[in-house]
């Protein structure tokens, strides 16, 4: 989608902040702040990944929901809860599993290697 912004892109801005934390801040702080610094760097890297692969994931997720006849995850969750999906649970599970993989690709791709 077209936008009016100049470079750096939003992902590049986040990357710049993350690298500054890693290069300049982390070596200069105590162990407790280093722990919180690592959490912060992980979050920035996560959003960088979401900016990169999120748009394609959104298209695939919409397709999954369309297949199941649900507008969003709330409706899907509600219909599973109400037993309205009981006759197609294998199909529902396969599509929900695919969405869990997509969430992990953004949140923590290393988790999939274990």
């Amino acid at each position, binding site marked *: 989608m077209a936008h009016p912004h100049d470079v750096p892109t939003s992902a590049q801005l986040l990357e710049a902040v993350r690298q500054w934390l890693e290069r300049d801040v982390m070596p200069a702080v105590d162990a407790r702040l280093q722990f919180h610094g690592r959490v912060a760097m992980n979050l920035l890297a996560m959003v960088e990944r979401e900016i990169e692969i999120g748009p394609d994931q959104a298209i695939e997720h919409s397709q999954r929901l369309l297949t199941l006849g649900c507008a969003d995850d709330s409706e899907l969750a509600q219909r599973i809860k109400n037993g309205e999906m009981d006759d197609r649970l294998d199909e529902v*599970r396969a599509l929900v599993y695919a969405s869990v993989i997509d969430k992990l690709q953004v949140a923590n791709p290393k*988790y999939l290697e274990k």
Partner: protein
Amino acid sequence: MVRTWQSRDVKTTAIVDALASDLSGVLGAREVSNLRRLTGGASRETWRFDADGSAFVLQRVRPGTVGGLKQEPSVLLMAAQHGVPVPELVFDGSASTALTEPFMIVRAVEGETIARKIQRDDAFGLARQNFCRDAGAALAKLHSIDVAEVSGLENEDQVVRYRDVLDFLNQPHPTFELVFHWLRAHAPVSQRHTIVHGDFRLGNLMIGSKGIAAVLDWELAHLGDPMEDLGWLCVKAWRFGGAAPVAGLGSYDDLFASYEQHSGIAVDADAVRWWQVLGTLKWGIICISQASTHLSGVMRSHELAAIGRRVCENEYDLFQLLEGEW
């Protein structure tokens, strides 16, 4: 070593000095020294101190916590009487106002609670070998206690409880709905009704050089199916990155064999698995709850916010756990 993280909450030495003085009054001790705050649970403050040459731990209810200490001191006493390794209860302050909020004082047990150190440090090699044996024995003894001996413990259906929590949090998680569906369809017929520790895992166990020195953190003790404790101990989050299913340290077979040896009761592996599934789901719901603590503004923290994006790890764990079992 014990859990020693100096809290930022300790703002002034005046507060510490006043508490030391109160403690010396409670124990009738000549001198209270080295009083320092340790990391504690959500509803408790934990302090360590020396009194007349012996080391003690104080657990005090955080101001504003509903329900006080509940049955914790009496459960601790009961567990000790039945041979479960626990810290010795020195003072039951559950009905006392000497320290403003309800409290209890136990004798300090030396050892380590940090999972990473227990899993890796050379000093715990023997403890790692003995872990399943000790865990099976401790749980078998705890579960042998006649429930008529303790009163006031909660007796709540755990599926209903976490169903309610997820509904309250109001976040859509189709995976969790699928798992609730599975849990209802596969619920084990509970064979026994016992005291359940409720949070038996690394972090809440004091590990000495030879094995489990003491079972700590009894605030979630309740009545229920004893297999809940075995299942919770095997939840992936409590392996802390280790490969072995029991606390990242041992095998199901070793845990079950020890439990059977000390209880005389055969372990139903399917029932343990069911509780492991519920435990994994429960941890996922707790993660949603922690993120909501940040989102609602109760406690703004990027660390809590990050936990919200770890819920999908639990969802993935559940799919792995239930592969071929649906």
